[in-house]
């Protein structure tokens, strides 16, 4: 297995508080890695460090062996790192198709006409094709989450970073989303997925890491990690059974 995306000894502080503290993460090609941890554990900051929205105080990020620590988000996107946002941020004044077009043309850096095919495929994979010409502002939450996914897929990412994409959805919606993500995995996209809906996560990922205080507290087989004393401790505190 070759490592595709790696963060080494990442540290980031805000106002004297270390949000991410000497955290290392590595993702193999084709692997699906799940991330759990309490609120404020530094999960989203870790993701931001990997995508370039935030630059690390210390440590470095490599992608396919190249150091990308100082590259801005748009360049990392070009390199093949796609992400979704915890709170979907569609371009509300554009249609679903046009939203996806942004990813296809700028993420792939290609002319508009050459992108249509790619857009349609991304929409299809995210189950949004019939909604292509609807204005993004009229979408509901599930469709907004799907649009997040479709836009990113249109950039043809090698690595997909998902930030709580199942949060706030109904049982049934979570199921359909999990199916979509399983599908993407099967197509060979490597995935890092932050999620607090544990059963959704367990259905997809090969490996799970748990973080707290910006540090790694457990890593390995998903079921073992979730049942590990460290993780129980973090969540349940002093009463952990």
């Amino acid at each position: 297995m070759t490592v595709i995306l790696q963060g080494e000894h990442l540290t980031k502080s805000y106002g004297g508080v270390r949000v991410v503290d000497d955290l290392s993460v590595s993702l193999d090609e084709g692997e699906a890695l799940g991330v759990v941890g309490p609120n404020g554990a530094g999960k989203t900051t870790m993701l931001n460090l990997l995508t370039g929205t935030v630059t690390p105080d210390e440590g470095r990020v490599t992608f396919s062996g190249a150091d990308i620590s100082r590259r801005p988000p748009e360049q990392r996107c070009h390199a093949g790192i796609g992400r979704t946002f915890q709170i979907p941020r569609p371009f509300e004044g554009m249609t679903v198709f046009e939203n996806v077009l942004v990813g296809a043309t700028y993420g792939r850096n290609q002319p508009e006409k050459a992108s249509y095919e790619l857009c349609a495929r991304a929409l299809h994979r995210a189950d949004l094709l019939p909604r292509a010409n609807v204005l993004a502002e009229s979408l509901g939450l599930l469709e907004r989450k799907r649009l997040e996914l479709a836009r990113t897929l249109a950039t043809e990412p090698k690595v997909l970073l998902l930030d709580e994409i199942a949060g706030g959805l109904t049982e049934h919606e979570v199921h359909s989303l999990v199916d979509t993500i399983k599908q993407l995995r099967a197509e060979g996209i490597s995935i890092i997925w932050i999620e607090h809906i544990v059963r959704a996560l367990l259905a997809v990922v090969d490996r799970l890491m748990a973080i707290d205080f910006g540090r790694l507290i457990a890593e390995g087989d998903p079921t073992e990690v979730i049942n590990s004393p460290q993780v129980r401790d973090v969540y349940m505190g002093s009463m952990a059974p």
Partner: protein
Amino acid sequence: MSLLELNDVSTGYGHFQALFNINLRIEEGETHAVIGANGAGKSTLLRTICGLLRTEAEKVRFDGRPVGQLPPNKRVGLGISYVPEGRWVFPSLTVAENLMVGAHSRRTGMWTMDKVYELFPLLSRLRQRQAFSLSGGEQQALAIGRGLMSNPRLLLLDEVSLGLAPVVVEKIYEAMPAIIKSGTTVLLVEQDVGQAIRFADRITCMLEGRQVLEGSPKEISNEEIFAAYFGV
């Protein structure tokens, strides 16, 4: 009449529904803990009570009064004080000034600056320090102290132990008995179940925006809590 009543509250952020039909009664003098994994809607619940999120007026009643539409600053005046997750101390103000701002509502009662310093002796020697230079634990103590300065009838504590080392959490929680003894009703939200149930008369467990378990800590087994926590 309960001090606080939530009647069928559903709310969220924009398109995101975070709470589904929540019903809750808190009696005067009670200590109530809300537990659950992250994303369960615990903090949203407190924000709905303190006014950062608004609902129909009738859905939140405080001391019999519909307050669902009031902004947070008005609710403080009625006696609802919220200690936010992430602490939100005023970084450029000194510790003493933070406490003075906490008393902005001019509600009087047993909590004064001296009493707060007594409650958290660690703050007492930091009076003139700017809050940004404080450690996480000191900031948390300051945030609670600041919340007490408005002499609330209902104190909402949001994730007090978040991001703090266990020894520090222990130190913060040492203050709990004194707060409870002062007659203040406390509603606290915790991920750390152990801490939560140590002081709570009742607990409510939430999962994905819904109430899944409620009762006194003695009635509920750890296994039940664990199941409710992860939904597995």
